[in-house]
């Protein structure tokens, strides 16, 4: 077929015992935006990584413009006109925008800085993408980094653009801008493959949609002949209701009071600026914000892991600031923190479930010896309660799937019957069913009267699950709003610090929002 830019046939790929792609077929036409839809773990990224030369298929063929090709490395894919923008940006922090763009390309042996800067400026004007060629990547915002990634791909003359979950880290406004760019690319005759699991985005930009489920192709449909409900069914394999229940609870006492909390990082930059808010028993307080707005620091500061410069975190009449994490644990203060980086922070990857469960138990044991018996019993309980798929309690956590790893972590923390539960991105990388299990667990805790602080990235989820949403921008609270009567766009504006929509009524209720906008 002449107008098929990409044609992938019977692609298979497995990692160890895990089959990521099974007999997948995909055709992408010239000049279309093709959405690749599927839940986490459906094999979307794996498939695209084979198209960009990062992975090699175990079997199957790939045709670009009708010619069969085999990529030994990403550079072969670049030569074939394929440009991929990865979910986790592939940029070199210490290099400038310009250097990142020309990296790995045929350049003159000696770099001519001025000529290159001019060339890139010209290009950015042509595509309407604003960038400073001499800015270092570590000084860039997420939006800037994405613009840079797109320019990088265009510089390489890509005709096929693959975007892997590009909107996950963007504000709604930035997402709109990205869609505009994608449409422009399409007009210029490029093909755009857009990986996502968000139905509304698919309906907004895609021409055709290929749905993947559990590593297999379900079908390819035209947008005009489908609707979100149909797509959801294809994606899930069964009729599913993808709305999240918000359980209404009576507003009761304040469990955690945060007052004027400020912190600075190693380089002396203020990462938390006089934050004040209350966390009530039996509510889920969502935290929204562009990545790196102080979410991580806030969680860690409350848990005693990040040095606090000033302010208070009052729990049960006691100020937690200045207490060490072990004091917080051993005093029986039931504060549970589920960090964003599961294997990097919450769990010990190479150890088994028992040894990970014992992590939060052993400090309360007496004597110098460690007793793993109680942890063994608890591990089994957690496995049963959360139906964790594992060969046994002595199985290394690293070998479990993402959803099961998250369940181990969540199970361990819930087991301590906390009064405050802090969770950062608890559903990142999980399939839909696991996500809903987690949401249900959080709702269950909320019903029990636990105060839940939920750091999220998917605004739709935040709006549906949480009672209130607190928006952060550059370490500052730019608004605390009722999730029932706020729109995504409004939150997006607060995320960039453009407005503070903390409403009068709420303000007197919670009396804690910071009025100033962020700079």
């Amino acid at each position, binding site marked *: *077929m002449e107008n*098929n830019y990409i*044609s992938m*046939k019977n692609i298979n790929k497995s*990692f*160890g*015992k895990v089959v990521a792609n099974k007999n997948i077929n995909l055709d992408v036409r010239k000049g279309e935006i093709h959405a690749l839809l599927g839940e986490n773990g459906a094999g979307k990224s794996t498939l695209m990584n084979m198209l960009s030369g990062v992975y*090699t298929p175990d079997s199957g*063929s790939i*045709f670009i413009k*009708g*010619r*069969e090709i*085999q990529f*030994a490395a990403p550079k072969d894919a670049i030569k074939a006109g394929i440009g991929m923008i990865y979910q986790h940006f592939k940029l070199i922090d210490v290099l400038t925008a310009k250097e990142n763009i020309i990296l790995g390309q045929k350049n003159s042996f000696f770099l001519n800085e001025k000529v290159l800067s001019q060339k890139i400026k010209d290009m950015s004007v042509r595509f309407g993408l604003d960038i400073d060629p001499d800015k270092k990547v570590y000084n860039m915002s997420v939006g800037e980094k994405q613009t840079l990634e797109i320019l990088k791909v265009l510089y390489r003359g890509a005709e096929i653009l693959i975007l892997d979950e590009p909107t996950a880290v963007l504000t709604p406004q930035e997402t709109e801008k990205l869609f505009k760019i994608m449409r422009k690319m399409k007009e210029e005759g490029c093909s755009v493959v857009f990986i996502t699991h968000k139905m509304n985005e698919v309906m907004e930009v895609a021409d055709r949609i290929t749905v993947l489920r559990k590593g297999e192709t379900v079908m390819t449909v035209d947008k005009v002949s489908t609707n979100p409900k149909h797509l959801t069914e294809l994606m899930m394999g069964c009729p599913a209701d993808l709305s999240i229940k918000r359980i209404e609870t009576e507003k009761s006492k304040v469990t955690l009071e945060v007052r004027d909390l400020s912190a600075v990082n190693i380089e002396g930059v203020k990462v938390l600026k006089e934050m004040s808010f209350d966390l009530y028993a039996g509510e889920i307080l969502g935290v929204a914000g562009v990545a790196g707005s102080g979410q991580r620091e806030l969680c860690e500061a409350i*848990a*005693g*892991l990040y040095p606090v410069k000033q302010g208070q975190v009052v729990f049960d009449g006691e100020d937690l600031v200045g207490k*060490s*994490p*072990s*004091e*917080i*644990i*051993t005093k029986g203060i039931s504060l549970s*923190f589920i*960090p964003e*980086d599961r*294997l*990097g*922070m*919450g*769990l*010990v*990857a*190479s*150890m088994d479930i028992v*040894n990970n469960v*014992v*992590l*939060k138990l*052993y*400090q309360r*044991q007496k004597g*110098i*010896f*460690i007793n793993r018996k109680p942890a063994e019993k608890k591990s089994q309980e957690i496995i049963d309660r959360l139906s964790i798929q594992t060969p046994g309690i002595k199985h290394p956590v690293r*070998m479990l799937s993402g959803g099961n790893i998250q369940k181990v972590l969540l199970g361990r923390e819930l087991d301590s019957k906390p009064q405050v539960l802090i969770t950062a991105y608890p559903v990142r990388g999980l399939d839909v069913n696991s996500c809903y299990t987690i949401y249900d667990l959080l709702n269950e805790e909320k019903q029990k009267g636990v105060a839940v602080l939920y750091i999220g990235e998917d605004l739709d989820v935040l709006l549906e699950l949480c009672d209130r949403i607190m928006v952060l921008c550059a370490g500052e609270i730019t608004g605390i709003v009722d999730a029932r009567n706020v729109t995504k766009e409004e939150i997006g504006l607060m995320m960039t610090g453009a407005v503070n929509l903390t409403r009068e009524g709420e303000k007197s209720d919670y009396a804690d929002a910071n009025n100033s906008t962020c700079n």
Partner: protein
Amino acid sequence: MLMPITVRAIKKSEPGRMQAALIRIGAIILALVASSLFILLLDLNPGDVYVKMVQGAFGTPYRIRETIVKAIPLVITSLGIGIAFRMQFWNIGGEGQIAIGAFAATYFALFMNDMPMPLMLLVMIIAGMLAGGIWALIPAFFKAQWGTNETIVTLMMNYIGLKWIMFLQYGPWRDPKSLGFPKIANFPDNAVLPEVFGVHIGWIIALVLVVAVHIFINHTKKGYEIAVIGESVNTARYAGINIKKTILIAIMLSGGLCGLVGMIQASAVNNTLSVEITGGVGYTAIITSWLAALSAPVILIVSVLFAALLEGGSYIQTVFGIPQAAAELLQGIILFFVLGSEFFVRYKFVLVKKHHIAEKNQVSVGKEVQ
């Protein structure tokens, strides 16, 4: 037309214990084969040389005793270094810690020896362990406080420690009765470790320590904390482990065990202090403890085998005139092979046949048209 074939590495699904052990043993055999090439270069029959090495290590009761004497410092130092390695603290300062431990023990043996033997030995042991521990504590403090690279600092301190011993040996502690020979006086009898079954009591100490370290690592809170820090400092922080304190304790222990080796060697083997006291054990122990995957019982086995290699190495030196350095070379080769073999525990190579592109292309295009 040629069928191009490429080789690719693929991650294995979980490898079995048996398989992993077989791969490692295979690597050691391959290392011996590779070393045979060296031996052939020397115009010798590798088979003969290996047989003589085994004889040299285990051929007579005397040689067995000698092998055990060589194994004792290796076992204890490997245990010590293993504790640090478990925490991903690269203590390659074993040499210096042994030397300083020996120095402290020697001080009491020479200048405060007016004690009954058990007390004398106890004081020497404590002094040796404390001194070795404190010597190791210096880089550990820098590491805990500022994250200073411990690999280089521990190594630099080896040189400083050995220079200090040289200073003593050639200067203030030189024995005036040695007729100008730069030598420190021999220990009095009450400062020499007794023998049990023909070998000094260090072998009992080593066995006890193997059990003790095994229990420490697997069944105590501190041992668990050390393992958690080694895996992920962030998780340790998250769990409320006092990282600085744990680093200091673990390294104090690590250096203390090395210091104990210094005391044992000075007291039981050399009966005095000299720069040769360490005999490179601090470096060899890096290899043994890594080969043993930091597990205390395995360290015991590997150390004995390595002691046999050293003992056999010095025997073939006398029989064939092969330089002592050959044994050192062999150690390096074995470790290279075992290090490389870890890859085959985790991955396997597969051959990928590249199908004939042009032909296939036509076929599939044809299909499309239909």
